[in-house]
């Protein structure tokens, strides 16, 4: 064995530990990068040489620079993240709807409805009183305006939900395109024997973002190419990716493939949350509001038609509400122009208020779905509150799971400065030792040369 061999082993060692320092520096530099996966260097002894019947060690080499990542945690994290995003998105929209209803407060429909019936009750005292008749008109207008505001605001939220769904679908398509591009780079790198750890980190970050929008499942093939499926539809594989579009099918907001309109089964992610609120919750609240308003029109008109107005001669058969549709609770224009058209007298005399008594009592009668109108409305408000609370609690619980999984992920893939600094000291010492070896070998060679 010649002295030059020592130089070879030391040189290789220097190069190896320099590379190791590079990797460690890369880890340290990304210590605060949440999407970064720590890289670990595997060392092994260089293939030994067999000379003169001896096996001569050839030094150290780097076997692999591996990403330390748990695919199981990744998969669980994406599923939980999708669930969280779905519930959080639902909660955010339901919160807007809650604000629209403004319950329980003086500004809600409940208070307007009570005031409306109370104004009839107070009219029973002096049915020919102009002030009390105006009070009936004002409370009706207030109720009408409140119903209209709530109805329109909910529809605006519904429209915004649809727009948000469309924008997020475009984002899904963009993300799939980006994953496809990174896939190609990862496969190309692999083909020339280069480990594409950072590219795979980028791809995982994109897939993580995708999982906040839709429920995804990811399988990585033997060439390290990620195959992504969304809600039962193969969205991306080695051959390319599928583009998605938005469709409303039977009133339900759906994600479909652009090409053949295959429907995605949304069970997680923000799109699932948007679709659920758009397709189920909002129609339910609007239907309740419609049922309430229609019943109000029917019951009040039924009594009001029987009454006689204060006009000369007294008239009957007058509707109090013209109609209700699409949030428009329209009060009879003749009444708005002439409050004497309010018909509360059962016999045509101006002091009779039997019809006002009957209208005021509607509020206590079980006229809608086996309950009173205000209780029917309260039930709807409780349903809205429960929906929001359920979403909040699901989101909160899932968030705790996510935090646990994120901790697990951090434990496996996160960079520890202490650990990396220890490695640096270790590699630095190895590097120094190798350099010292070269110096010693040099001295040995000089000794030999001097002998000549």
């Amino acid at each position, binding site marked *: 064995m010649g002295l030059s061999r020592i130089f070879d082993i030391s040189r290789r060692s220097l190069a190896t530990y320099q590379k190791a320092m590079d990797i460690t520096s890369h880890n340290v530099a990304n*210590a*605060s990068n949440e999407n970064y996966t*720590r890289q670990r260097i595997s060392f092994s002894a260089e293939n030994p040489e067999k000379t003169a019947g001896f096996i001569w060690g050839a030094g150290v080499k780097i076997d692999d620079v591996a990403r330390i990542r748990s695919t199981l945690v990744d998969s669980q994290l994406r599923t939980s993240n999708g669930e969280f995003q779905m519930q959080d998105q639902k909660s955010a929209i*339901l*919160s807007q709807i*809650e*604000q629209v*209803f403004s*319950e*329980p407060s003086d500004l*809600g429909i*409940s*208070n307007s409805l*009570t005031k409306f*019936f*109370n104004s009839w*009750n*107070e009219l*029973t*005292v*002096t049915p020919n*009183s102009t002030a009390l008749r105006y009070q009936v008109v004002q409370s009706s207008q207030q109720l009408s305006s409140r119903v209209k505001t709530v109805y329109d605001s909910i529809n605006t939220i519904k429209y915004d939900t649809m727009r948000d769904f469309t924008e997020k679908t475009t984002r899904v398509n963009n993300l799939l395109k980006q994953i496809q591009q990174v896939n190609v780079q990862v496969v190309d790198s692999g083909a020339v024997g280069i480990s594409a750890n950072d590219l795979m980190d980028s791809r995982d970050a994109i897939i993580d973002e995708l999982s906040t929008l839709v429920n995804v499942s990811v399988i990585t093939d033997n060439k390290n190419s990620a195959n992504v499926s969304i809600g039962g539809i193969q969205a991306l594989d080695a051959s390319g990716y599928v583009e998605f579009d938005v469709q409303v099918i039977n009133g339900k907001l759906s994600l479909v493939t652009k090409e053949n309109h295959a429907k995605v089964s949304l069970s997680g992610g923000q799109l699932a949350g948007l679709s659920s609120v758009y397709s189920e919750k909002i129609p339910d609240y609007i239907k309740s509001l419609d049922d309430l308003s229609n019943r109000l029109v029917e019951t009040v008109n039924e009594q009001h038609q029987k009454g006689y107005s204060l006009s000369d001669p007294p008239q009957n058969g007058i509707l109090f509400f013209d109609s209700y549709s699409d949030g428009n609770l329209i009060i009879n224009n003749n009444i708005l122009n002439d409050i004497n058209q309010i018909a509360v*007298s059962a016999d045509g*005399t*101006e*002091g*009779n*208020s*039997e019809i006002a*008594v009957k209208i005021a*009592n509607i509020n*206590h009668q079980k006229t809608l779905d086996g309950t009173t109108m*205000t209780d029917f*409305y*309260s*039930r709807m*408000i*409780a*349903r*809205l*509150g*429960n*929906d*929001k*609370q359920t979403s*909040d609690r699901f989101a909160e619980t899932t968030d705790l799971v996510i*935090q646990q999984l994120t*901790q697990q992920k*951090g*434990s*496996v893939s*996160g*960079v*520890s*400065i*202490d*650990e990396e*600094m*220890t490695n640096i*000291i270790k590699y630095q010492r190895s590097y120094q030792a190798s350099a010292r070896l070269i110096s010693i070998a040099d001295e040995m060679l000089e000794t030999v040369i001097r002998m000549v």
Partner: protein
Amino acid sequence: MRISDVMLQSSFINNLNRTKEQLAKMQEQSITGKKVLRPSDNPSSSVTILSLQKQISNGESYLKNLDYSKGFITESESNLNVMEYELSSILSNMTLSSDPTAQGNLNIFAEQIDLSLQSMLDAANASFDGKYLFGGTDFSAKPYDLTSDGASVEVKTSGVGGEQKISFSQNITQKLNVTGTELFGTIVKQSGSLDSGAANGTIITDQKSIFNAEGTEFTLKTSYGKTADNTWNFTYDIEDGTNTSIFGTPPTAKSLVFDSSSGVLKTVNGVSPDLMNIRDSSNKIDFNIDLRSLKEASAPAISMSANQENDIFNVIIKIRDNLKNGILPTGEQLDQVQAFHKHLLNKLSQNGNIYNQIENTQELWNNRIFNLQDLYSKEQDVDQTKLIIDMQSQDNQLQIAYKLSSMILPKSLLDYL
């Protein structure tokens, strides 16, 4: 377990956020003073709060009605008292006028009785908030006035029997006014039973003397003809002293339907039975028929009675005019005035009962609203003391977290190399 730097950071941020979230919630509650600001804060509480708000609002509305009603009743009582006072004065003058020493001054008594009559008329026409107290529900004109010849008092509106009803609660609707009909008018009540087993075509009749505003006697004849099971046709006629009908054409028959099991009168011409006002201006006849006590039963017997047969104004006018002409009041007239006086005291008593009932209901509502507000407060109002202590505790936790994390997070091996 391997601890990475990202783990420490995210764990700290998550815990910090949770504490801050709780603090924010408490701050919101502290500022608004309310526990439930949106339905999702507590859905079941929201329903309770909405229900309590509705009940309190309803209660306040009923209290407004009750307050107003007390004013109306007080005013009615005051005017009934005026009438009672004037009537007592008339009775006194009638008695004094019989004194032999007063025979030369009968005109003075007539004048005093006339003044009392005017006061009674004023009281009868008294109003509260634009509503005639004893004029029923027709407020189009002053209800009572002298006829053009000044010989009698007549009703100037479509009727004085209308009932002013006001709701005091979900289940209580109270008639507030003493109607002119029940105070001054004659109500002929038909009592007893019609034969439920009678064959179709059976006719049952009854009759009673009635008096017009000038005290002239007429005969009211009623007739019931069976047309079907539980159904009778009711007709009536009024004949003068010569047994001649006062109607050119007989009044239209009304269909009476009785309940097949209880026998009570269910409907008259398809609507709930009420007083039937019968008025004939040319003969100064104005009275009411009340069929509400009439039944259908197997033991048939019907009868008619009247709450008061004579028009009090007419009686007083006659007394006044007689005194002017030097004629002393008769014993019959004294009886008639005393009968009305008794009737008036009854009405005063009834009015007082209504007032008491209103006061009781008002008291009940005040208590109920107080209880409802107490429940509302328990459901909605924040316990500020508890909240401040909780906030203080959360704030302490937050400060400890800041302190500890500021000590731990920046530390690494680097500090010792």
